[in-house]
């Protein structure tokens, strides 16, 4: 279930659009429509009337699962580039190899 509000009577459809071939779909906004055909008609107008989208995905809001909480117990630095500081070791290695300053 999405954390976003559900309107009283008419479903909300989230619209994702693809700007050009090879690009990923990006969230563009939402439309309110009673069914998929109306959602498509209005999404075509709103996100395609100037030929600016190559493709659209329409997803009912309540089909979306929101994930917003993350386990905090471990320091995950070793999985990221900023978790490594090689400067000091690189300097020492170059000095040992006699290649410091030739670089």
């Amino acid at each position: 279930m999405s954390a976003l509000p559900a309107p009283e009577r008419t479903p909300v459809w989230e619209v994702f659009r693809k700007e050009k071939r090879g690009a990923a779909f990006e969230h563009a906004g939402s439309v309110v429509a009673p069914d998929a055909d109306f959602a498509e008609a209005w999404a075509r107008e709103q996100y395609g009337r100037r030929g600016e989208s190559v493709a659209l995905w329409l997803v009912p809001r309540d089909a979306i699962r929101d994930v917003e909480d993350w386990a905090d117990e471990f320091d995950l630095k070793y999985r990221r580039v900023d978790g490594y500081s090689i400067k000091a070791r690189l300097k020492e290695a170059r000095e040992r190899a006699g290649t410091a300053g030739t670089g």
Partner: protein
Amino acid sequence: MAAVEIPRDEQAFLKYVQSGGQVETADWMPDDYRRKLIKFIEMHGNSELMGVLPEREWILRAPTLQRKLALTAKVQDEVGHAQLIYRVVEDLGKPREQCLADLVDGKAKFHNVFHYPTETWGDVGVIAWLVDAAAIISQKALLKCSYAPYARIMKKICWEESFHILHGRDVILAMVTGTPEQFELVQEALNRWWGPLMQFHGNPIPSDEDPMFLWRIKSQGNEEARQQFLDGYVPQIRELGLTVPDPKLRKRDDGVWEYTEPDWDELKHVVTGHGPKTEERLAFRRRFLDQEQWVRDAVLAA
């Protein structure tokens, strides 16, 4: 890394937004923030919807087919913007039907410029060029709104408005390079629209007294927006040989524009529903809402 937690305390929330914090729909927000947000965004939606009426009057009277198509496209864009904006208001808790009911009942406001008549094709050019320019200055500042869903739709709106301004400027250029009568139409329209344009950004309330700025809903003060408008557009107006109808208008050495004090009483009078065309245009909206009820009923029964 833990997700950013929105502090559930008004003072802490204030600090959060003032240091650039973004707020999403499902986040906790102070009641005052939500109320002010709804009122501000709703007024924007109303303005887009009402703003098409002065221009719509000219679709059948446009001088060329290309202008007719461009004007129709502009009107379609503006209604599309209204729909994007009401969608944001809906997710904040106020149904669109309520917004439209409040609009036609005169309980909600829309921008001053859309309460005035369009007398000639010169007005159509001046509106698309200068009114849209004044609006885009405010809209660019809204790209930094603390409420992220609104900031996001502003990106699409700003992108689409850029064609509107170019269309407006093209209309004006065609007239100022045409006959002397056409040039006069533009100057005369400018004379009538300058007052409302100078009022458009609102009276110069200092930023630290403006709750919209404190909540970072607006990221720019009213006077700052007006100065930006003058900086950008007075040179563009003058280079065409047009005269800005304000003898006091001048740019000081420190870069600040001086001008005749706008009529703030007129602004208040107009936005509280007493503009020359307010009643007529709200009646138009009311009539169509009633007439088209059957469409909404049919669609929602689908």
